[in-house]
């Protein structure tokens, strides 16, 4: 239920960027959300739509790139998404692979309508 706070942060950040660029409106907000971030994307969309009214984001679409946990194998350099919690390298079966990404909580891009 912290998605309301996350949505408010997104709106605040986007508003700041839009004002900086003298934009009339924000048309699209693109986020990167990792599966380990602890954020429920469905709930985030709901909160975003509630909070965007009467802001520069009133007509903005929210686009979420959901990122799976990604690991790298130190022995064969293979990089792969983790499926079914299988952390071993699918290429060389090395079990001690390293975490690369999957806890993203990032505002990646905005589409602005300039004045």
């Amino acid at each position: 239920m912290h998605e309301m706070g996350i949505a408010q942060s997104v709106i605040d950040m986007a508003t700041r960027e839009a004002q900086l660029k003298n934009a009339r409106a924000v048309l699209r907000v693109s986020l990167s959300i990792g599966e380990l971030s602890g954020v429920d994307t469905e709930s985030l969309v709901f909160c975003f739509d509630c909070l965007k009214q009467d802001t520069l984001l009133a007509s903005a679409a929210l686009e979420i790139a959901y990122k799976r946990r990604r690991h790298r194998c130190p022995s064969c350099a293979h990089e792969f998404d983790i499926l079914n919690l299988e952390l071993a390298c699918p290429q060389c079966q090395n079990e001690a692979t390293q975490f690369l990404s999957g806890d993203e909580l990032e505002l990646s891009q905005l589409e602005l309508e300039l004045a």
Partner: protein
Amino acid sequence: MNPPVMEKVAQKILSENDRIAAALRASFLQRNILCVNLISSPGSGKTLLLEKTLEAFPKTERVAVLTGDIQTDNDARRLARYGFPVRQITTAGACHLDARMIEKALADWDLSTIETLFIENVGNLVCPTAYDLGEEAKIVLLSVTEGEDKPLKYPGIFFKSDLAVFTKIDLLPFVPFHLDEAHENARRIHPSIEMIDLSAHTGQGMDAWMQWLAARKAKRNSACA
């Protein structure tokens, strides 16, 4: 009408929280304070573990506790009985602590009198995961009256915690909880996670927990020296 303009931002959504947390972490480091952030579902035994921990420390130990709850100062009152400084953070609805709450709660505390700071987060396995409080380590608690599959259901917090404490193990004879399976699930999410099985009620496992804290403090001292 002008065509839309794409604007790369690439900023962390909680960058304001992270900025405050980084300042807190720097200030803990500078003063050689070990700060740990305890996270679990409601009722997993965070407060009782802290009570027994405070009880185990000699009175000369420089320990302090910040305890977060949505309502009431019941936990602060329970914890204040042990003679160490304790402060309640009441979030009035928020389901997690954030770095600004910690900064505010510590503002008029003399940090030079503290060596170990425990933060007891609001009971919740999801939301506290996203908020860095400047702690050196997150610690997740899971009681044996919950399910063994909690690490799989809430991977974020098990992934981000250095230590998992399995609590209420005195109840193992009465509940269908398979400790090995719970360990295995935690390791599937986070292969290098440390684990302690413990009952704050009977004291079983408390030595391992106190040793873990001492080892983290020793490691920090050698890093600061």
